[in-house]
């Protein structure tokens, strides 16, 4: 019995099916709308659609980005709203963090940018398992989803294996940065600890199964009509085709029931269309609803069983910083809007402690919403548009990610709903690491210096620290641990508190490296499924 159809859930399910288990998956399953004009490029959508404004901005203008000091330089368009829609009655209060939730078929990865980075031995040192335990499952998942990668200077930090596929062709701006890096590589590495490589992305350069290769349409953010960018919904399709798989959509799992020996006896859910309570039974249960939602299910189970309000400490999240920069060499060239829109390049900045390694991705500006960017320039809008059009081919953003560690001050808990309706609301309290500000400043300084050494200009005052929670890389509330520690799980994801409950998603990570963790979630879920008891 698997809860959730995101990156963890589907790879857990598929490996379990391949190992002879029967699998039932419970899911809210908000569905992706059908792509509009599948063959049209970003520009063609604006001239061919009958009502392009409603498509790009939404029927009520919800896609218009107004001034805000904390806003990202790009947001999620109306066509991706289904990814973030939350069912009524799922209540959350939070402090020092803006958590996001996904109840989509495929989860958050319906809106990701495909970054797929294996953790290395250093990253996995705080885990009760080794890289050797993980590497075979990285390869299994890589073959399933199709990751493009190249042997490059990131290999010491992001392991490479033969399961990867060719990378996508570079856009002109990324190509220039790539060439310039190789001219100045020694200085960048030795002085700045800066290593550049190709992004490892789950975007197809060649067709895989029923997914087509990237068509360079430039509409990645709005939803790839070729399905070249991997989504767990693709793996879910494989599962659904399997005779031993049952997919139950339209149910929101609230909690599970367990006996006095800690054995889970069933899962209680609310049917979305009529709000009726339904119960599902299984032998083994796997929580893969995402770190926050899975934690709420456990907290609710404890509350309903014993009346105890439990607390899950250790919530982690990657802080993200956007560093916009300009490459003067590209000014005056034509911008290619019909081009793969997301990042082609990734970088790492080494630190004395390998766990502090800083990871980032560089996205050169191709197709984009113009108005969120021009409003941030320190000019009236007429001048800002002119300057933006002049600089556009040379604009890019370095998205810097910082690692996070478990702390007792970052917690999840629940409290009974104020409505008195027998529900609870999730309480998220993120406790900042007092050293993080210094680490962030140091990391950003290093990245800026490296970009300058590459020949790029970093305009002052435009670096943005995104609101905590934006990364949606949540983790750490029920971590894998060698010995029982609260509601931890063992190295196979089996809960220390509940005898037949597996924690499959990011909740089980004991440390959150700066690299996007989605690929590791998939591989770890596959590893856990392979270790399920047989019979």
């Amino acid at each position, binding site marked *: 019995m698997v809860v959730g159809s995101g990156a963890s859930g589907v790879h857990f399910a598929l490996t379990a099916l391949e190992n002879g288990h029967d699998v039932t998956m419970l899911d809210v399953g908000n569905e992706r709308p059908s792509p509009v004009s599948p063959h049209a490029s970003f*520009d063609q959508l*604006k*001239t061919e659609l009958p009502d*392009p*404004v*409603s*498509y*790009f*901005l939404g029927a*009520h*203008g919800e*896609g*218009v*980005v*107004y*001034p*805000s000091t904390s806003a990202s330089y790009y947001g999620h368009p109306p066509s991706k709203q289904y990814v973030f829609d939350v069912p009524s009655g799922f209540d959350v209060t939070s402090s020092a963090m803006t958590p996001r939730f996904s109840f989509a078929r495929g989860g958050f990865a319906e809106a990701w940018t495909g970054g797929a980075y294996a953790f290395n031995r250093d990253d996995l040192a705080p885990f009760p398992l080794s890289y050797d335990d993980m590497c075979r499952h990285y390869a299994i998942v890589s073959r399933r989803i199709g990751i493009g990668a190249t042997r490059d200077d990131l290999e010491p930090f992001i392991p490479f294996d033969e399961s990867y596929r060719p990378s996508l062709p570079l856009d002109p701006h990324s190509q220039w940065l790539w060439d310039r890096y190789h001219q100045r590589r020694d200085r960048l590495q030795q002085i700045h600890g800066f290593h550049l490589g190709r992004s490892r992305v789950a975007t197809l350069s060649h067709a895989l199964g029923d997914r087509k290769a990237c068509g360079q349409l430039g509409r990645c953010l709005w939803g790839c009509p070729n399905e070249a960018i991997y989504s767990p919904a693709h793996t879910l399709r494989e599962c659904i085709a399997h005779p031993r798989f049952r997919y139950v959509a339209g149910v929101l799992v609230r909690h599970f029931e367990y006996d006095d020996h800690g054995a889970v006896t069933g899962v209680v859910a609310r049917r979305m269309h009529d709000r009726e309570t339904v119960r599902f039974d299984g032998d083994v249960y796997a929580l893969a609803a995402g770190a926050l939602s899975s934690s709420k299910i456990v907290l609710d189970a404890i509350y309903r069983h014993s009346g105890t309000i439990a607390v899950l400490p250790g919530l982690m999240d990657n802080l993200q910083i956007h560093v916009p920069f300009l490459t*003067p060499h590209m*000014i*005056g*060239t*034509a*911008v290619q*809007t019909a081009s793969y829109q997301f990042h082609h390049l990734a970088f790492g900045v080494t630190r004395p402690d390998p766990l502090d390694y800083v990871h980032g991705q560089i996205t050169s500006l191709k*197709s984009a*919403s*113009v*108005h969120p960017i*021009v*409003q941030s320039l*320190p*000019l*009236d*809008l*007429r*001048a*800002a*548009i*002119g*300057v933006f*059009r*002049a*600089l*556009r*081919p040379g604009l890019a953003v370095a998205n810097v990610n910082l690692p996070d560690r478990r702390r007792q001050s970052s917690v999840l808990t629940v409290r009974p709903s104020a409505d008195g309706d027998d529900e609870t609301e999730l309480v998220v309290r993120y406790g900042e690491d007092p050293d993080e500000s210094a680490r962030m400043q140091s990391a950003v300084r290093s990245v800026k210096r490296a970009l300058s050494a590459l020949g790029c200009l970093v305009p002052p005052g435009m670096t943005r620290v995104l609101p905590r929670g934006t990364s949606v890389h949540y983790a750490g509330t029920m971590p894998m641990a060698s010995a029982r520690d609260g509601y931890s799980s063992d190295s196979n994801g089996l809960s220390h508190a509940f005898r037949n409950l597996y924690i499959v998603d990011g909740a089980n990570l004991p440390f959150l490296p700066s690299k996007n963790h989605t690929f590791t979630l998939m591989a770890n879920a596959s590893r856990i499924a392979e270790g399920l008891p047989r019979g």
Partner: protein
Amino acid sequence: MSADAPIPDDIAFECRAFARFLANSETTPYVMSHYAQLRPTAALSATTSARIIERGLLAAARLGSLPLRMADGYARFFLPRALLRRRLLLLLAILENSPGSERHLNSSIEGSLPMVGVRVIASGLASTVCLLLGIVIFSPLHLFSGAADAPPVHRH
């Protein structure tokens, strides 16, 4: 306002003036219809338009391209959430996604680095002059109406 409703003259006038300012283009019925329909969503729920400075900026914007540029430049630095600027951003968002105007806004200026550099510097200088004029004109009004910026953003 429904999509088929006639567009009031003041909204049509505003839309045309803003479109010329933003994209050097005449507006189309398609753009104007969407602008009229979405214009209420650009307002803050706790409206600030009653403030004297807000009314002053909007009134100046109706006088022509130069006053509009001064008002927008002033708002960029001193009232970034001003209703004028929000309406301009709404129209810009519509224009960049509308047939006809999308090509201009989604393209780059091609040419040699010195040529493009001169255009950037000229744009920056013109913007700075307009900002300085805007400060002279609007800052007394702003001081008079209470210098605090708009309340926190809450979308309708």
